[in-house]
């Protein structure tokens, strides 16, 4: 049952084949078995049981709340959850228990979802590997898949020392792993530069970054307010559409959400792409793009053309300035957003009482990791009076040019853009950490972060396996507030690819690994 889609599970719950408590228990035991993946920071065992019990009562009375009733979900640990610790994977917020639910969390709960726990991430979402967390790195479950093990058994020692597990991608790596390994049906991530799509792609699941302003950010602990969007990770595009229907819409607590009511939609099974115009941005032939991804990308373009779609090469000329521009805007907002963490009201407080200032400084030194402190430092530098125009204002102007690139392309008649999601498949952890966080983020976000600059929606869909047996995804970028069209194309593509998801719970041959890992985990 854990391999089901949300839809299938919801149907099974409705016809009585499955009950919410049973489902909860299955997920919980799998969470425990896969603890070594480090996907969850906090498993909300008791709260989830209560929610499952209530869901069961509703089903017994024949009055389920909605499609999510009784469905186990997970939420990235940078969304505020009432009475459940919310850490952002940082020493700074360790032990912080918020008094309120983020709007998106509340909307899931209002539909009867069962919140299994909070998922791991790079500290405050700053990273692209889910490797920079105070709770340790997240491991990609595909590292333990039959495919990966078989294909790499020749070159590496896999089973014995477990040294070449691959990263989950980030920063929503915990959420991607939670969905991919089957411990929940849907997870919330956040996406500022690709943080939902990147791990979704590396873990072989679908990841949507909705249009900025469509889904409320209230309760999402911000990284970059002007780019952050709650992301949805699920096993298939239909599930993403279902959850988007639940989450989208105006929130009076987030002034940047649009007022227009959101029309929920279901995607047809037969999708016609003959009238579709797909753009292939030439600037996305980036250095470092793996030949596998490149060939997958061009095969997909051919596939679309064969199906009757019009495929055209387009240009987004300002793409190459995006990463550096993102760096300035991101660090500036980070510097500002992190100012509230001073040890006075909540979270970590250093044991220094010489003066308020000394306490601030010790608290922030102890509470933030090097990556966060580095971004705060850069951001404050860019915001200094003498630098503001030269860096921040210029970056804002470039951002506008990048957004205009998309507007122009879409105006020219292009419906969606097709691009890679990442340069290649997931890197082994040992390789990944050879470079610093900033370098890795620049590499990993190269195809994803433009959509955040422009505010447009984008989705990654698993497209196949690399020669190493790891998932590869492709990305579709759509027009602002045209999620229905974007998801339709994504669903069509999903059907063509017929990607075989990781049935992690079925991999009996991995049991011994799981067992061994659990033992090690318990020793730690």
């Amino acid at each position, binding site marked *: 049952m854990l391999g089901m889609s949300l839809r299938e599970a919801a149907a099974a719950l409705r016809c009585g084949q499955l009950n919410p408590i049973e489902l909860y228990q299955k997920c919980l035991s799998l969470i425990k078995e896969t603890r070594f993946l480090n996907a969850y920071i906090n498993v909300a065992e008791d709260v989830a049981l209560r929610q499952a019990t209530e869901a069961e009562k509703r089903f017994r009375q024949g009055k389920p709340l909605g499609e999510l009733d009784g469905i186990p979900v997970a939420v990235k640990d940078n969304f505020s959850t009432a009475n459940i610790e919310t850490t952002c994977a940082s020493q700074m917020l360790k032990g912080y228990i918020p008094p*309120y639910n983020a709007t998106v969390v509340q909307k899931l709960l209002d539909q009867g979802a069962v919140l299994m726990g909070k998922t791991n991430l790079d500290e405050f979402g700053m990273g692209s590997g889910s490797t920079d967390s105070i709770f340790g790195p997240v491991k990609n479950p595909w590292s333990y898949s039959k495919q990966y093990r078989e294909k790499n058994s020749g070159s590496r020692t896999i089973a014995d020392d477990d040294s070449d597990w691959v990263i989950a991608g980030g920063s929503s790596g915990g959420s991607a792993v939670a969905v991919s390994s089957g411990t929940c049906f849907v997870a919330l991530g956040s996406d500022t530069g690709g943080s939902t799509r990147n791990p979704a792609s590396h873990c072989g699941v679908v990841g949507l970054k909705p249009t900025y302003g469509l889904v409320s*950010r209230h309760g999402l602990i911000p990284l970059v307010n002007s780019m952050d969007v709650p992301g949805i990770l699920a096993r298939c595009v239909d599930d993403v559409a279902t959850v988007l229907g639940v989450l989208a819409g105006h929130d009076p607590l987030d002034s940047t959400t649009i007022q227009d009511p959101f029309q929920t939609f279901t995607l047809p099974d037969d999708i016609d792409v003959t009238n579709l115009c797909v753009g292939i941005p030439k600037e996305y032939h980036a250095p470092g793009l793996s030949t596998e991804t490149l060939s997958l990308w061009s095969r997909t373009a051919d596939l679309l053309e064969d199906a009757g779609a019009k495929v055209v090469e387009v240009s987004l000329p300002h793409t190459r300035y995006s990463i550096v521009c993102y760096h300035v805007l991101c660090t500036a907002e980070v510097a*500002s957003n992190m100012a509230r963490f001073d040890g006075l*009201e909540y979270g970590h407080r250093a044991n220094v009482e010489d003066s308020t200032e000394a306490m601030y400084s010790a608290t922030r030194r102890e509470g933030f990791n090097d990556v966060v402190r580095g971004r705060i430092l850069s951001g404050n530098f860019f915001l200094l009076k003498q630098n503001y125009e030269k860096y921040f204002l210029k970056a804002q102007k470039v951002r506008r040019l990048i957004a205009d690139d998309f507007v122009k392309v879409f105006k020219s008649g292009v419906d969606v853009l097709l691009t890679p999601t990442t340069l290649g498949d997931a890197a082994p952890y040992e390789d990944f950490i050879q470079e610093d966080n900033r370098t890795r983020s620049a590499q990993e976000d190269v195809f994803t972060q433009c959509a955040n600059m422009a505010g447009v929606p984008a989705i990654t869909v698993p497209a196949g396996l690399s020669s190493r047996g790891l998932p590869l995804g492709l990305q579709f970028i759509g027009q602002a507030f045209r999620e229905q069209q974007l998801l339709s194309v994504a669903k069509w593509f999903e059907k063509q690819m017929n990607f075989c998801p990781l049935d992690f719970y079925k991999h009996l041959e991995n049991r011994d690994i799981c067992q061994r890992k659990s033992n090690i985990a318990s020793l730690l």
Partner: protein
Amino acid sequence: MLQVSCGGCALLLGPSVRSSQLCYVGRGWRTASTACKHARDTGSLPWEGVVGLEVHAQINSASKLFSSSQVKFAAPPNSTVSFFDASLPGTLPTLNKRCIEAAVMTGLALNCAINKKSLFDRKHYFYADLPAGYQITQQRLPIAVNGLLTYRYPTGKKWSDMVTKCVRIKQIQLEQDSGKSLHDDFMRQTLIDLNRAEGQLRVDANISVHHPGEPYGVRTEVKNINSARFLARAIDYEIKRQTDILNNGGIVQNETRAFDYKLGATIPMRDKEGKQDYRFMPEPNLPPLILYDSKTLPRNIDAGQVINIDLIKEMLPELPNITRERLVEEYGILPEHSFVLVNEDGLKEYFEAVVKMTTADPKKIIGWVIKNLLGYLRQENLTIKQSLITPSALAELVTLLENKVISSSAAQQVFQELCKGGNKTPTLIVKEKKLGLLDSEQLEGICQKIVDEHDEEVAAIRKGNLKVMNKLIGLVQKASKGRTDPALAKTILEKKLQL
């Protein structure tokens, strides 16, 4: 909070937004007599003070600028704090419409240009009572700019010596109010109250001196002045202090100072807040604030969701200078009286209510209102609302006088009675105290008695000294205990003396 900045000959107001304050900013020249005199004494060129004010005013709204928590005066500490006010991670600001309306109305009242699009910024600094580490304000593009406030004030003892001045308003901005720090030196701790609704008005004054025609001097900023009286004292002190420094060959330091009302002096502030780089940044969580007028209001828009400047213009109450002009024109009262009516809260309404209820000349009513009523209220330390004398009672009293039912001295007695409270109407008081005017028959006797007892005066009158007649009338008035109509008494007396 609203922050208003004024300058040149100007007043600057500006608003703050968390606990909904308005803040105005402006700059004005205060030609301080102390400074000028001092300059003459030393024989050098005269110094002129240049003053810019940042006025922080609390908006009278039910909830705070960026959150739905209440604004309540004297609420227990931290009792009206929302998650946003406490800067909990993930919370976002939402603009309070009432505060925007108040800012627009203030802008209109101060003859500002209202910006149809304004922006919010973050101003960063670390302070214990600023939990987010930044304050949301309107630095780049505020809600209103370029205003003008004209005002008149007396220069001498006589009310007729009025001078008209104007203050230029640089901008009005909506601004989040910071919290309040309470330092407990004994316990070596600081307590924070995030209610942020404490002060209704707070002024920061920027002051410098220069020789007219020369560039401005180095300015100091005197922060957190909380009354108009202290503001005047702080400015006078600072101009004198700077003038003394300059006259002695010193240099004025650009610094932040505080006004110590006990010392009557400004003193340097310890914190270096004024020299910080605030690292201003656009507030990404608030879209540009767009205002409309009736022409630009989009169709198919929920009128309750948007702000129409023209509608606010209609709601604007009559402004004080217009009111004063109207009072003078409509009722024929003196300009100085119009100031009193407008300055005393509720007095103008009281006066106009009385005028409506009687046919008596407003020029006669104004004396009763300003001299008698206000005198009584001041003596008893009462506000106009607390007055025991209602407008209708005063109107009735004035009518009795107008209809010659009582004399003016009897009217004074009735007024004294009214001051004592009780529910008696003037008519009833007149009846009970027998204060009504005597008719000719009743007066005949009194007049005859006076004539009989005052041969000397009668003789003088008969010789042609008609002035003495007034003395006789006075005596009649006295004998009748103020119940005499002087004209009637005169007629009777003249008849008796066969004049």
